[in-house]
C-alpha cells in the first residue's frame, strides 16, 4: 500500500514515540507525556490497520516482506514478513497498547514519561518479534522485550516487585539463552545463514532435532508459560501494575505460542511430532491441575494469572495435536485470551485503584455501588469461562473439537476446563460483586468513569464480536495454518 514499509512502521513508530515521550522528562510535563504517548499508541495502531485491509488471505508465504542487510559479517538480514498468524497478533498488540496507555492515564502519577515510554517500546519490540523472519532478529526482539517489562514490574509494581521482576527476568532469560545456542547451531549447520526460511528447509537428524526442540521448548514453554515452568507468572502478575499485567497476559505470553508456531514446528517438525505426546501431557496438566489451583486462590490477580496458565494450556494443546482445527483454535484462543485476560486484569485494576486491595475477601456487593462495572465484568467473566457467544467459546471449542479428532481422552480432559473455568471465575465473581455490601469501603465505591468505560467497552465489543462473528479473524488464518501443517507433515530427516 503506497509502497510504505508497513511492518517497519509498526515496529518503529511506537519506539520513536517512546523516545519522544522519554524526552518530555520529569513529572512536571506529565500531561504532555500522556498525550504524546496516546498519540504514539494510536499512530502505532493506525499503521497496523492497512496490514489487515491489504492482506491477501488466500496467499501462501509471507507478505509485506522487507529485506535489507543488517550484520553482513554474520549474514544477518533485517528480514520482515507476516502471515495470517502474525497479522492477528500484531493487531492485538497495537490495540492493547492504546488501551494500556489510556488505562494508566490518571493512575500512574510517578515517572509518567518513563512508564508510557516503556509500554511504547514494548509494543514496538513485540511487533518486531511477530514480524521477524531472521532468527537473530527474532531473538533480539524477543529478548529485548525483557528490559521494559523488567522496569515496568520493578518500578511501578507492588510491595514484592523486586523479587517478582528479577524472577521474571532470569527465568525467561534462562530459556531464551538455550534457544540462542540452538540458533547458533542451526546457523552453523545452514552454513552461515540465520534466515528462518533457510532453517525451514534444513535437513536435520532426529537426535539433533530433539535437542533443538528442547532448547526452543525451554524458551517458549517458559514464556507461555507451561506447567511446570510457570511459577514466575503468578508472581509477576500479582506485583506488576495493571498495565503491566495486561500486556504480560495479553501479548507477552503469546510470544511463546508464536515461537512454537514460527520456530519449533517448522524447523524441527519430526521432533515436534515425536515429542507431541509430552507437550500434550504438560498442556493437559496445565488445563486441569492449574485450573484446580486457580479455584483456591484468594487474590484476584493470582486467580486470573492461574486462569491464564490454564487457558494457555489450550494453546499448546491445540498446536501439538497437529490438525487444522486444533491449530486454528489455538491461534484464536491466543487472540481471545488476549482480550479476555487483558480485560479481567483491567477490571481488577479498576477495583484495586479504588480499594487498594486484591483480596477477594475484602469485597462483596460491589454491584450495588458499581452497576455498569459489574455488567462489563460479568461479560468478561463469562468469556473467561467459555460461554457461547463470547470469544472464549470459539477458541476453546475449536481446540476441543481438534483434540477429539486426535484422541477422545485429550478432548475429555480439555473439556473439563469448561467446568473448572466456570467454577473459579464465576465463584470469584459472585464473591466480589454479589451479596450484601461487605464493608464501608465498598459502600464508598464510585462507578467507572468515562475513561475506564471506554477501555473496558472497547474490549467488550471485541470479545462479543469475536464470539458472534469470528470469520474476520479465522479467514486470514486458513492458508497460513494449512501451509504450516503441510510443512510439518514433511519429514526433514536426512534420506538414508
Amino acid at each position, binding site marked *: 500500500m503506497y509502497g510504505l514499509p508497513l511492518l517497519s512502521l509498526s515496529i518503529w513508530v511506537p519506539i520513536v514515540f517512546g523516545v519522544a515521550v522519554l524526552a518530555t522528562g520529569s513529572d512536571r510535563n506529565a500531561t504532555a507525556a500522556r498525550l504524546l504517548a496516546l498519540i504514539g499508541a494510536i499512530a502505532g495502531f493506525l499503521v497496523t490497520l492497512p496490514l489487515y485491509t491489504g492482506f491477501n488471505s488466500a496467499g501462501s508465504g509471507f507478505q509485506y516482506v522487507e529485506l535489507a542487510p543488517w550484520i553482513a559479517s554474520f549474514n544477518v538480514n533485517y528480514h520482515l514478513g507476516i502471515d495470517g498468524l502474525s497479522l492477528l497478533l500484531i493487531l492485538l498488540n497495537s490495540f492493547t497498547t492504546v488501551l494500556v496507555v489510556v488505562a494508566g492515564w490518571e493512575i500512574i502519577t510517578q515517572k509518567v514519561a518513563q512508564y508510557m515510554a516503556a509500554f511504547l517500546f514494548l509494543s514496538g519490540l513485540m511487533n518486531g518479534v511477530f514480524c521477524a523472519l531472521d532468527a537473530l532478529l527474532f531473538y533480539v526482539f524477543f529478548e529485548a522485550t525483557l528490559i521494559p517489562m523488567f522496569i515496568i514490574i520493578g518500578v511501578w509494581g507492588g510491595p514484592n516487585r523486586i523479587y517478582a521482576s528479577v524472577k521474571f527476568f*532470569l527465568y525467561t532469560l534462562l530459556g531464551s539463552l538455550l534457544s540462542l*545456542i540452538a540458533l547458533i547451531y542451526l546457523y552453523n549447520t545452514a552454513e552461515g545463514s540465520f534466515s528462518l526460511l533457510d532453517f525451514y528447509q534444513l535437513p536435520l537428524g532426529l537426535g539433533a532435532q530433539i535437542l533443538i526442540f528442547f532448547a526452543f521448548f525451554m524458551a517458549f514453554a517458559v514464556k507461555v508459560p507451561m506447567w511446570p515452568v510457570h511459577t514466575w507468572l503468578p508472581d509477576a502478575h500479582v506485583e506488576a501494575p495493571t498495565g503491566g499485567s495486561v500486556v504480560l497476559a495479553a501479548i507477552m505470553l503469546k510470544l511463546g505460542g508464536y515461537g512454537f508456531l514460527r520456530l519449533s514446528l517448522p524447523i524441527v517438525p519430526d521432533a515436534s511430532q515425536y515429542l507431541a505426546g509430552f507437550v500434550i501431557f504438560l498442556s493437559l496438566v496445565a488445563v486441569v491441575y492449574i485450573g484446580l489451583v486457580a479455584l483456591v486462590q484468594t487474590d484476584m490477580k493470582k486467580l486470573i494469572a492461574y486462569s491464564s496458565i490454564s487457558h494457555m494450556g489450550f494453546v499448546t494443546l491445540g498446536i501439538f495435536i497437529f490438525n487444522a482445527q486444533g491449530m486454528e483454535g489455538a491461534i484464536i484462543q491466543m487472540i481471545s485470551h488476549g482480550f479476555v485476560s487483558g480485560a479481567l486484569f483491567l477490571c481488577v485494576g479498576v477495583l484495586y485503584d479504588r480499594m487498594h486491595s486484591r483480596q477477594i475477601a475484602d469485597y462483596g456487593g460491589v454491584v450495588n455501588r458499581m452497576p455498569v462495572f459489574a455488567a462489563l465484568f460479568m461479560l468478561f467473566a463469562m468469556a473467561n469461562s467459555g460461554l457461547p457467544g463470547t470469544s472464549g467459546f470459539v477458541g476453546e471449542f475449536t481446540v476441543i473439537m481438534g483434540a477429539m479428532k486426535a484422541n477422545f481422552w485429550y478432548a475429555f480432559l480439555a473439556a473439563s476446563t469448561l467446568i473448572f473455568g466456570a467454577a473459579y471465575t464465576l465463584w470469584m465473581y459472585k464473591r466480589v460483586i454479589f451479596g450484601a455490601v461487605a464493608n464501608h469501603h465498598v459502600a464508598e465505591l464510585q462507578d467507572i468513569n468515562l475513561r475506564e468505560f471506554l477501555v473496558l467497552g472497547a474490549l467488550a465489543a471485541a470479545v462479543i464480536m469475536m464470539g458472534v462473528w469470528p470469520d474476520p479473524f479465522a479467514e486470514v488464518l486458513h492458508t497460513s495454518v494449512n501451509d504450516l501443517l503441510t510443512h510439518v507433515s514433511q519429514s526433514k530427516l536426512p534420506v538414508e
Partner: protein
Amino acid sequence: MQYIQPLWPAYPELFLLFMVCVVLVADLFMHDDNRTATYTLTQFTLAGCALITWFTAPDSGPTYTFSGMFVDDLMSDVLKLITYFTVMGILVYSRAYITARGMFRGEFFSLVLFSTLGMMIMISANHLLALYLGLELLSLSLYAMVALQRDSARATEAAMKYFILGALASGMLLYGMSMIYGAAGTLEITRLANVIADGSAKGNILTFGLVFLVAGVGFKLGAAPFHMWVPDVYHGAPTAVTAFIGSAPKLAAFAFVMRLLVQGLGAEELLVEWRQMLIVMAVLSLALGNIIAIAQTNLKRMLAYSTISHMGFLLLGILSGDLNGYASGMFYVVVYVLMNIGAFGMIMLMARTDFEAEELNDYKGLNQRSPWFAFLMLLLMLSMAGIPPLAGFYAKLAVLQSVAQAGYVWLAVVAVIFSLIGAYYYLRIVRLMYFEDAADNTPIYATGDVRILMTINALAMLFFGVLPQPLMQICVDSILASF
C-alpha cells in the same frame, strides 16, 4: 643503521617516547594551579599518536622493522587507535576524581603515557623479548600507579600484591620463553612459527615452555586460576587507576595472546595443546567470576570478578582456533573495553571528595537523582550482561558462534549458563538504581566534557547494538589482514 630501517612503522612509539620526556620535564616547571597544562599536553600527545598511527598505517600486509622485532599491521593499528582513545577517555573521566584526591600531578600523566607506550610495544612486538619489554614497561608503570595514593593502606597493599604476583608471572613468562628459545633456537615470532612448521623444533621442550607461557598470559589477562590479584587490585587502587588497569591493558593482552599463541605457536600440534589449557582457564574464569561476583557488595570488586568472567569469554573466542574466532575475540575485547571505561567512568562521576561511590548501595535510587545517568548505567550494565539489543550481546554471540563452529557446543552451553548467572548481578545494579529509593540526595555534579563523553560512551553500546556491523567488519578485516 640498516637494522632499524624502515623507521616509520615505529613513529607513533617514538613520538610518544619523546613526548613523555617532554611532559615529565615540562611538569617540573609548573605550579600546582596550572597543572591543567600537563593534562592538556597529555591529551594532545595521545591525539598526536592517533594521527601518526592513522597516517603511517601500511597499505598492505604487515611491515617488519628493527630486524624483525617490530611489526606494524592492521590489527596493531586498530588496537593502538582504540588504546589511545580509551586512555584519553579515562583521563577525561578521572580528571575531577584525581584532582579531588591530590593525584592530579605530573607523575600520574607520565606513568599513564609510559604504560601506554608499553602497551603499544606489546601490540606491535614480533619478538618475544620485545613483547616482554613492552609488558614490563606496562606492568611497572601500573604497579606505581596503584601505589600512587601513598597514604592509603589499601592501595599500598594492592600494589604490593600486584607487584609480587606480577613479578612471579613475569618470571614464568621468561622461563617459558627461554624454553622456547632452547627448543626452537629463535625468539622472533614469525621465524619461530616457521621453525615449528619445519618440524625442527624439539616438541617436548616446546610444550613445556608453552605451559609456562600460558600461565603467564593467564596472569596478565586475569583469567582464573591466575586471577587472585584482580579483585584486590581493582578494589584497592584509586578508581581512576582501576579504570585504567581494567581497560586498555586488556587490548594489549589480547594482542599479546595473538602474537604469542596464534602467530608464534599456532601450529596445529601446539594449538591442540594450548587449546586444552585455554578451555580449562575459560571455564574456570566464567564459573568463578560470575559466581563470586554475586556475593560482592562493592561495585569495584564486582566489576573485578566480572572482568574475570569476560576474560573467560575472550579466551573462548581465541581457543576456537580460526580467523573467525580471533575476530570474535577482538570484537569482544573492544566492546568489553568500551563497557568497562563507561562503568568506571560512572563510578568516578558519582564520586566526590571523601566519597568513593564504590558501594553498590551508593547507586540506590539513581533514577530519582539523575534519570539520564541511570539510563546510561542501565545500558552499560545490560550490555555487560549481554542482553540484546546492546553491543555486549553481539560480542557474546560472535564468540559463541565461533566456539560452536569449532565443535565445542558444550562450551557454548557452559558459557551461556554462566552468563545467565552473571545477568543476576548486573541486574542488581539496575534494580538498585530503578527500584529503590535514594538514600543520599546530594546532587550529582559533572563537568560538561564528562557528561558528553559518558553519553557518547553509553549510547555507543546501543549504537553498536543496533548496528554492530561497522565494528565487526573492522575486527574481521584487521584479523584477516594480519594473519
